[in-house]
């Protein structure tokens, strides 16, 4: 029996390949449904159908396109930290919204004290931010027009709306500058603390339309 299987016909092999391809296709489709469960599209028999992609990307690290990973140490009250980051819509769909959620680990008064803890402002420049200073003490100036998209607030927040961004449009990129300020009112309880702040940018797909 084993020997006979070595010689199975070509049609048997083709069937096996087709079955395999079918299984993979189903699996891929299920994965697609998982990521794009709210997508809708209409089509007819003669048209090709492609699913939309919602993809938000950040600029490469180790460059001015993403300095969020650059650590800041030895902060004292009154210090500021500036970091640039590019946020891009690399998918093929426009976005309904783009939000920023920040979290801290571990959580300390540095991030839980909304008055004396770190304060954040996010600004957008119409062109690339011009970076100055040696790492990690970067500063940035905007040679184009600058707008504040997140006004001064406590650093930690969920679903902070980033309005008016180019990245809401497929292929768009925004040049952002995150400025953290350590208030001068911080008391002794703020000495010797460490935390890691995570910035999560979330793009939400546009509403479904007739295609």
């Amino acid at each position, binding site marked *: 029996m084993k020997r006979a299987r*070595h010689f*199975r016909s070509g049609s048997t*092999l083709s069937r*096996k*390949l087709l079955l*395999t*391809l079918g299984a*993979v*296709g189903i*699996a*891929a489709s299920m*994965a*697609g449904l*998982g*990521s*794009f469960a709210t997508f809708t599209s209409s089509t007819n028999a003669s048209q090709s159908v492609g*699913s939309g*992609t919602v*993809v*938000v*990307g*950040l600029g490469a*690290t180790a460059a001015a396109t*993403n*300095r*969020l*990973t*650059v*650590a*800041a*140490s*030895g*902060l*004292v*009250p*009154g210090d500021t*930290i500036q970091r640039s*980051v590019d946020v891009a819509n690399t*998918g093929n769909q426009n976005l309904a919204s783009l939000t920023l959620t920040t979290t801290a680990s571990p959580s300390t008064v*540095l991030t839980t004290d909304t008055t004396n803890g770190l304060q954040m402002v996010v600004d957008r420049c119409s062109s690339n931010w011009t970076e100055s200073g040696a790492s990690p003490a970067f500063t940035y100036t905007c040679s184009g027009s600058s707008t504040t998209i997140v006004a001064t607030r406590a650093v930690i927040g969920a679903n902070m709306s980033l309005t008016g961004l180019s990245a809401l449009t497929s292929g768009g990129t925004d040049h952002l500058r995150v400025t*953290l300020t*350590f208030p*001068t*009112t*911080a*008391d*002794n309880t*703020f*000495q*010797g*603390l*460490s*935390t890691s*702040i*995570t*910035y*999560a*940018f*979330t*793009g939400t797909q546009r509403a479904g339309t007739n295609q």
Partner: protein
Amino acid sequence: MTRRILVIAATALVLCAATAAASAFFTPATVTSAGSISTSTIAAPTSPSAVGGSSITLNWTATSSTYATGTRVLRGTASGGPYSQIALVSPRTTTTYVDYPPGAGTYYYVLQSYYQQWTSANSTQVSAARSAIAFVQSANAAGTTTTTATFTTTPVAGNLLVAVAATRNAGTITGPLGWTLAIDSGATSTPHQAIYYKVAGALESKAVAVATTASGTGNGLHVYELSGATTVRGTGSATGSSTTPGSGSVTPSVAYTGIIGATVANFGTGMSGWTNGFSEIVDFTAGSGGAKTLLAGAGLLATSTGTYSTTATNTATGAWLGQIVAFG
């Protein structure tokens, strides 16, 4: 067997292709980036030291936290505290402070660095003794354009020296070289009196000289040495024409002071009956006949803040000038 291998290989290729497609299309719509942040700890000054005497001099090494604004100086009367802040010394690189505690005794100090609302931990504690305020010795002399009074013994380095120069007539008084003026009634006043002071040096002369442009022989000088005091803590003055010259009043800025009330009168042969606890230290005349000037000084060791004054009784009626200076 070969075909089975081919099937497996083909399947693997298809799976790889499917995976690649999934990566391209199913990238999550949330992207994250994280950075760490840490705050500083402000370091305390190091190596403090204290040297006592009529004042207490503190020295230390500046904090290594270069952003620090300066140093908080805290003082207590018991080892281990509690301590109270007595001074903010800035900038950070200033590493000395001279304290004038309120009275004799041993004092304990700790230092902290500060910046905005931040303060460091305490430095190690240091202590030193402040000597008590006391009148050590006095001297007096009459003169003309130059008057020299000579202490009996060489003043002790660190003690406070006080010179009271007076003239019957109007004229400028020039104090001892290098001394500091505490109060001067003015060149046109008659009589005229000025009080100077200095902290005695290591090789202080026993002789103290003043000069004046006032004419006549009715010029005089009386000098005092005080321990436990280093500077002026308040002044006052008064004028009049009667048999009861007054010193004016003074409100010292610190509790423990040595107060000198000095009067000069254009008539009379002696003062007596000093009031308010003052004790006469010096009482003498300069000049003679109708040009005689009566000079006198009385002292009080004060142990609390408040207002102090004194009057005395002259043997004759005449124009007088009084001045009072608190040293601590």
